[in-house]
């Protein structure tokens, strides 16, 4: 199966005049753990809600697993979703949440759900409103995975969790994906959350996709170049400047280049994923060639 799990073409969502997502074109290959990263308000939630059919696009199209998101029970059954802040019914017990899942999902795996709850040390008779944030997120994840989805969509699943709960949650998620080979898309405004779990990355700022691709390819095609102060025009051919900074004597560029950079006058370094993402996040929204500051 090589069809993308998510394909978006010119996808846009506006609320009146406010643009939440603009002209997003993406193809997410299957079997990946996709990190969707960007600052708050960048459009991450909008993109994810479009993917699960909570929202309808204003323009463009989106298909998930070959179907229109939220188009019917069969499509809903294929996608598991944990919304931001992992909403659960405060007045219902953990066991009642599982019963809800069982009644509303044909593919529900009750044994798996109960096993997860036991592993997490959750009391089935506890009301969801009395669980900690981490436990509630785990309960929401359990509901999403026990329906046996082909794609799991998680919107800021760890944002409200303390560091320990955050690590526990991501560990549980990784254990699940390693075992079940489910495609996952999860968003975060922190790269550090995604660094260890993702093999595909989408960077979203100001309602536009800045860069998207396999983490390995991104890491292998971005470089930090340091050398004597120079204009972008003096960089090796094929290098696209993502970020630049200058001191009186020295220039530092972060560039994307599909060919290895071989220039003796520059120090070429690999980037960390976090540096790479930060470079894209700080890039101006309107793409233009950066010019050297001349004013002193």
């Amino acid at each position, binding site marked *: 199966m090589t069809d993308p799990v998510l394909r978006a073409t010119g996808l846009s969502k506006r609320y009146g005049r406010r643009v939440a997502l603009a002209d997003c074109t993406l193809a997410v290959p299957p079997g990946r753990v996709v990190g969707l990263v960007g600052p708050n308000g960048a459009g991450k939630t909008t993109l994810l809600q479009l993917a*699960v*059919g*909570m*929202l*309808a696009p204003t323009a463009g199209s989106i298909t998930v697993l070959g179907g229109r998101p*939220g188009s*019917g*029970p*069969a499509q*809903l*059954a294929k*996608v*598991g*979703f944990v*919304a*931001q*802040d992992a*909403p*659960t*019914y*405060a*007045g*219902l017990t953990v066991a*009642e949440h599982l*019963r*809800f*899942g069982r*009644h*509303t*999902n*044909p*593919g529900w795996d009750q044994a798996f759900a109960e096993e997860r709850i036991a592993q997490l040390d959750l009391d089935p008779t506890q009301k969801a409103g009395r669980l900690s944030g981490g436990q509630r997120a785990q309960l*929401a994840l359990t*509901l*999403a995975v026990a*329906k046996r989805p082909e794609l799991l969509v998680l919107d800021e699943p760890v944002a409200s969790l303390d560091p320990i709960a955050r690590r526990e949650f991501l560990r549980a998620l990784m254990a699940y994906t390693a075992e079940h080979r489910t495609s996952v898309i999860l968003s975060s405004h922190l790269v550090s959350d995604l660094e260890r779990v993702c093999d595909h990355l989408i960077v979203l700022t100001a309602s536009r996709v800045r860069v998207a691709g396999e983490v390995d390819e991104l890491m292998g095609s971005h470089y930090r170049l340091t050398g004597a102060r120079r204009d972008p025009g003096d960089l090796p051919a094929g290098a696209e400047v993502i970020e630049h900074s200058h001191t009186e004597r020295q220039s530092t560029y972060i560039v994307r280049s599909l060919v290895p950079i071989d220039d003796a006058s520059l120090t070429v370094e690999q980037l960390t994923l976090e540096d790479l993402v930060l470079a894209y996040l700080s890039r101006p929204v309107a793409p233009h060639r950066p010019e050297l500051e001349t004013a002193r």
Partner: protein
Amino acid sequence: MIWFTWRQFRTPATITAGALAVFAVVLLVSGNTITDLYSSVATCQSDCGNAVDAFLTQVRNGAGGTIYNAALAVMYAAPPLIGVFWGAPLIAREIEAGTHRLAWNQSITRSRWLATKLAVVGGATALATGLLSWGVTTWAQRIDSAAADRITPLVFGARGVVPIGYALFAFALGVTCGMLIHRTVPAMAATLGVYTVAVASMPLWLRAHLMPARHETPALDMGNLDALLIDQKGAMLVEPNAVANAWTVSNQTVTSSGQPFTGPADLTRCGRSAAIRGCDEWVGSLGLRQDVVYHPDSHYWPLQWIEAGIFVALAALLAAVSFWWLRRRLS
């Protein structure tokens, strides 16, 4: 989904069932007393007017009067309470807490999610108000027939099938408000406001026109006057009595040419110093007519069904709006 809707609705349903049970006991106990009092009317052979009056006086002065008024209040309060506490939070609370995002991502469409909620809670609405109205209507049957006023506006809206229509409308209104407003408390307030306007407009402006009323212009019967007023300038107001066992919509005295009669009075016959009987004779000699529009008691059930039908249709329309909004706009 039915189990889940019931699970969410369990607490309000239990509270309502408890309240209905308590009220049913009160009606049962006091119903026996009323039956005992009514025996004098039931066995009356001639001159029953006095027996009826005595029965009504006894009921109204006893606990029955209090319960009668309480039942009226309950009948009018139940539909808006259902709209406010069952209808408005049904969707608004889910949106407020974000749990709709959990519910809509299970393997059922949101239309089915809404349909189940509407069916379960709407069914409970019809059942609860149906039982309540049946109990109150049965309990008050003897009083209503003795007072011959079941078609008058205040009693009409608290008996028969009309309260079921009111309640279904209030419920659907609450659901729709909650869906449009997204917040529980404002949705409750909006529900109450719109409901009050809609239901109050029935007796005030609409109900009289739901079916053709009877319009009669008999000769003015001087022995059947409610009031005869004369001011110092001689302007007169002659008010005939309302029609018995009917809802009198309008009732005035007109001249033989059809104009409302307002005097002027012949002060030599109706002046301060003149004898009252003389004034009556003079008014009686003018050839005046009573112009009365009324709904007789026989219109009671047709009006009940029409009005209940209107509110059930409005409820269905609101439900259709909810479905449309859920699919088109709430995204």
